[in-house]
């Protein structure tokens, strides 16, 4: 379960006062809860019955966290990310994202939440094949009706973050997998969202690219203060994360904070 000190920071007034200063420093600055899950259960109809992919999940994430949902395949990571991303809603319990209750949002409102505040990065890069790298990154800004000059500035800046400004006019088929995932990062980041949800972003990448990708995201996390929430079972990714939420059979098995210097268990 979650380390005590951390819990204290997140929920003021809890009984255990034992401070763990290594973490206090990290989270003191950004004490804003950006994602709150309370008793979230998700059931899918399967055949005649139901299957609980998530059971009674209670968790929250602070603004600026660089955290991951980890666990074996089928443990419910994607389901949980989809709920946080307002692409799905919980069967029971409440999920609050940016102060909005997911299950209460209309189609329009959840689309707006995604468009303005959430960035997605997937296992497969999922770039639109007929559009260039530039146009793929530009799309969310088109949805926001931003002016052409604003779009251009933002897109080029996002491509610079991931080091792909020279690839702007290439089609997705003409770039490598690592570059594709960097375009996906630029696409998620171009609108400067508060939260980026990355579902197994390195699963299709070799070690070198995986490290490069995750370092890029870490840098953006530090520079822009964007909250990153991963789903992964990749050790390489985990080694960069500050917090690992272990899922097993749809339940939180362990919520550990990782101090990279002290390597707390």
């Amino acid at each position, binding site marked *: 379960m979650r380390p005590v000190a951390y819990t204290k920071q997140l929920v003021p007034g809890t009984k255990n006062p034992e401070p763990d200063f290594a973490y206090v420093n990290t989270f003191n600055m950004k004490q804003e809860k950006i994602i709150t899950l309370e008793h979230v259960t998700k059931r899918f109809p399967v055949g005649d019955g139901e299957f609980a992919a998530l059971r009674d999940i209670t968790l929250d994430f602070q603004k600026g966290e660089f955290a991951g949902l980890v666990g074996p395949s089928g443990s419910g990571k994607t389901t949980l990310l989809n709920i946080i991303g307002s692409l*799905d809603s919980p069967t029971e319990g409440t999920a609050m994202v940016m102060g909005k209750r997911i299950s209460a949002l209309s*189609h329009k409102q959840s*689309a707006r939440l995604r468009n303005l505040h959430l960035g997605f990065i997937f296992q497969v890069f999922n770039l639109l094949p007929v*559009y260039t790298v530039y146009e793929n990154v530009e799309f969310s800004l088109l949805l926001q009706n931003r002016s052409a000059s604003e779009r251009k500035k933002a897109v080029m800046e996002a491509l610079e973050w991931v080091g792909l400004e020279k690839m702007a006019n290439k089609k997705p088929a003409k770039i490598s997998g690592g570059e594709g995932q960097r375009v996906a990062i630029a696409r998620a980041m171009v609108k400067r969202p508060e939260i980026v949800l990355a579902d197994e972003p390195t699963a299709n990448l070799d070690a070198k690219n995986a490290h490069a990708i995750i370092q890029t995201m870490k840098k953006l996390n530090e520079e822009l203060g964007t909250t990153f929430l991963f789903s992964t079972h990749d050790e390489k990714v985990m080694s960069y994360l500050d917090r690992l939420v272990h899922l097993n059979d749809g339940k939180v098995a362990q919520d550990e904070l990782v101090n990279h210097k002290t390597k707390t268990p």
Partner: protein
Amino acid sequence: MIRFLLKGILRDKNRSMLPVIIITIGVTLTILLSGYLKGVMGDLTDQNARFETGHVKVMTRAYYENKDQLPNDLALLDAAALTDTLRKAFPDMQWVNRIRFGGLIDVPDGDDGSKGQGPAVGMALELLSASSGEIQRMNIPGALVKGHLPARSGEALIGHDFATKLNVKIGDEITYMGATMNGSLTFYRFSVSGTLRFGSAGLDRGAIIIDISDARTMLDMEDATGEILGFFESNVYNDDLALAHAARFNSRYVQVRNEYAPVMIALRDQNNLAGYLDYVDMFSLLFVGIFVFAMSIVLWNTGLLGGLRRYQEFGIRLALGEEKGHIYRTLVYEAILIGAIGSVIGTCTGLLGIWYLQVHGIDISGMMKNSTMMMPSVLRARFTPDLLYIGFIPGLFAMVFGNMLSGIGIYKRQTAALFKELEV
């Protein structure tokens, strides 16, 4: 956003090619068929007008009711005065007198015997008066096989095959035997000045054409005429105007309780042409309807397939914060763009085909040998302005409708289900 969609359509050939081809074919067919029907109908109307009905025709009421029997006993009297009245009342039309008659043609062998005999259907025209325009109207120079046009009274033209059957040569004498207007027997001698073939079996069978002055003498019809035909100066039949003229003329005689009172009948109300005209309109409409229906179904299915192929794209767009409704609307916009492209191409190719048919035509005289119908032997299409939209609008409609149907399927799917497609 429109630019974004347009780029997608132009770059993704799979998305646009098939629908464009389907629409192009459908629109082309619609235009070809409509233009062709218009052409056939136009030719049919035209030929009927020239040879039989005029654009309007004045007869006595009794003659009109029995016109198939060529009842010259019911002919119009005071023909000159009535014709004059018509010319003054309807100066936009050209007015001519015609007498149609039946009888027997006998070819004497010069020995009080007979070389041959046959039933004849005759038409007496204002042949010797150049101003009547009847020679051109009936296209007699074009139909002339041998000999020359009648130059004076007592000369006749007869059908070429009829002449062959009766063994008549140019310059031979023939005798008409028949009944006068008053029912007494009449014989009249003509010299054959030429033979004709109109190319329409109905016209060529047993035909004889003489000048109307001969007919008046022969049939005892002094200052009488079976029919007075009116033709618009433009030579193009105008249904509304013809009906209006007829109504105006006939209103003068509504009070007259006399079966010899004249009556004016527009082309559409003669020879069942109204039926034809309406039939063609209905057929066009039916075809367009079937076309829209079939196209919609085909395009619905291509839309569904295209949609399935694009679930990944829709999933991404949803994740990027596009609304489902917006995605659906963009599908409709895309359909409008693709539908418009296909319809423009289809309209162009269709009109090209119409142009070919209008200029060159298709000769079907081989198929028409035994027909008694008054049908032109070369089928031509005709360009009319409505061809510009008769294919275009249904093409566009079918595409948009088909895609709206297929789009509903996508729209109804749960966001998460669409999104599931993203997972591998």
